């Protein structure tokens, strides 16, 4: 493309807890369904292909890039999700930092300008690594040029923990809502935020419909 105004891309990452507890109660299936719905939404909204790239990172005892940053509309097969193991926030933050850095450099090399990346971080349990360890990784992640993080606590994850992870907004599922339903609602937030950000040409995070989540005041 030889557009005189250089296009600006918003990198978006969905970072999802895939520890053992995600196996129960259809939780991982709910994540899978949400990714399918997200791909549909990107497919139906060409402006998203133009403005955003989406990647998926899963973590348990270790972290994995399940779907490298891409135009989701072009993805035929979505990754398999196989939950199991511990909940290492530190591993997630470290991999995310490396991934964000590499992706941003690649987009810049391809001639794009890059918006500050946006991360949707979902966890259903407390971290199993030591707080000083993950907190140090977190600090490195969100330092200069780090991503904006929207955090969601579902299941056994504690509000205060996710509040320490979030940099912009933090939502906590109400205890009377099944975790898989809460995950479906998070998928909805991600979809609407991805579309809204692409339409406005900036970073727009849309909160969940009332009922299933409470938003924490981060200040």
């Amino acid at each position, binding site marked *: 493309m030889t557009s005189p105004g250089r296009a600006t891309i918003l990198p978006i990452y969905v970072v999802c807890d895939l520890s053992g507890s995600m196996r129960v109660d259809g939780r991982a299936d709910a994540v899978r369904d949400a990714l399918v719905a997200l791909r549909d939404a990107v497919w139906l909204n060409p402006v998203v292909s133009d403005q955003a790239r989406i990647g998926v990172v899963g973590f348990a005892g270790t972290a994995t890039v399940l779907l490298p940053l891409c135009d989701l509309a*072009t993805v035929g097969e979505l990754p398999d999700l196989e939950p199991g193991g511990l909940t290492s926030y530190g591993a997630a933050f470290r991999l995310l930092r490396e991934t964000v850095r590499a992706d941003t450099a690649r987009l810049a090399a391809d001639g794009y300008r890059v918006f500050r990346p946006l991360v949707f971080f979902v966890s259903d349990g407390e971290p199993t690594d030591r707080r000083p360890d993950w907190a140090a990784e977190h600090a490195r992640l969100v330092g200069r040029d780090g991503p904006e993080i929207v955090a969601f606590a579902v299941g056994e994850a504690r509000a205060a923990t996710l509040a320490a992870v979030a940099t912009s907004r933090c939502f906590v599922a109400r205890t009377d809502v099944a975790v898989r339903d809460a995950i479906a609602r998070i998928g909805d937030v991600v979809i609407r935020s991805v579309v809204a950000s692409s339409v406005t040409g900036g970073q727009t995070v849309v909160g969940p419909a009332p009922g299933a989540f409470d938003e924490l005041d981060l200040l």
Partner: protein
Amino acid sequence: MTPFAVDAAALRQGPVLGRGGQGEVVEVLGVDLPGWPATEHLVAKWYLPAVAPDPAALTRLVSWRRSLDDRGRAAVDEVACWPRAVLLRDGRAAGVLLPRVPAEYTFTPRSPSGGRVTVLRELQHLIAGPALLARRGIPDTDPATRVRVLAGLASAVAFLHERDVVLGDLSVKNVLWSPVRGVYLLDCDALRLTGTNPPVRQPNSPGWDDPAFPGTQNQQSDRYKLALTVLRVLARDFHTRNPESAAGALGRELLPILRAGLHHDPAARPAARAWRDLLHRREQPTPQPKEVTDVPKPTVNALRGNRDG
């Protein structure tokens, strides 16, 4: 006389049709009020609690439409999803009753997950270039269709401007178009009449902002956004603000008016009326039979385009 405000209890509501940044849109199966005209297909838009619409501003929009004569009202209804009534829940203004988007402004592709979905034909589908469309199995438009749609948009904006309406936000999702009918403006519950405030805070779209009015919206910023829309549709580029990028699409004749329309000095910008007249002159007669109105089924291959294309 039909009331300006309708209580939620009087609505028979169907399924949720969509969720947006401001709320939820639900199909209305019927309005149980004596004398309510039963002919129109309606939807209810319920705002999120955080939105808190200004009831007086909503009522103003409803009564503005009703104050038009029959021809004027028909003309507005043809191009705009204009509020029919304010919706009350527990005595508070919580939503608006809107007409349902006419079927000509929708299409029903098969999504990658296999289901048929009804999708609004949005401005984004007109701006998106051939590669983005082909990947989705959406047929491309020809330049004549794009000019015709733009002429329809300019004429809708001109009509509303002449009647004191400020659109405020033009975005790739709130202008619908049809290859056979024209344009249809969504989110009319967020616009305002000159000299008054809008019912809800209007979103600020950095990619579409007017450098002359960063914080406010008025008919002059509407003119800028109209010019930007013409440019982006012709250039098929979601980002450009450079008039030269449309030169290839329509020849250099349009450059002076595009430059004027995008001028930082609001006084330099041509009125929507000028755009309407110019684009109508450039319109070619509608090619009747060849027009593509339906969308073929995308194949799985359409999903496997080149990565990061």
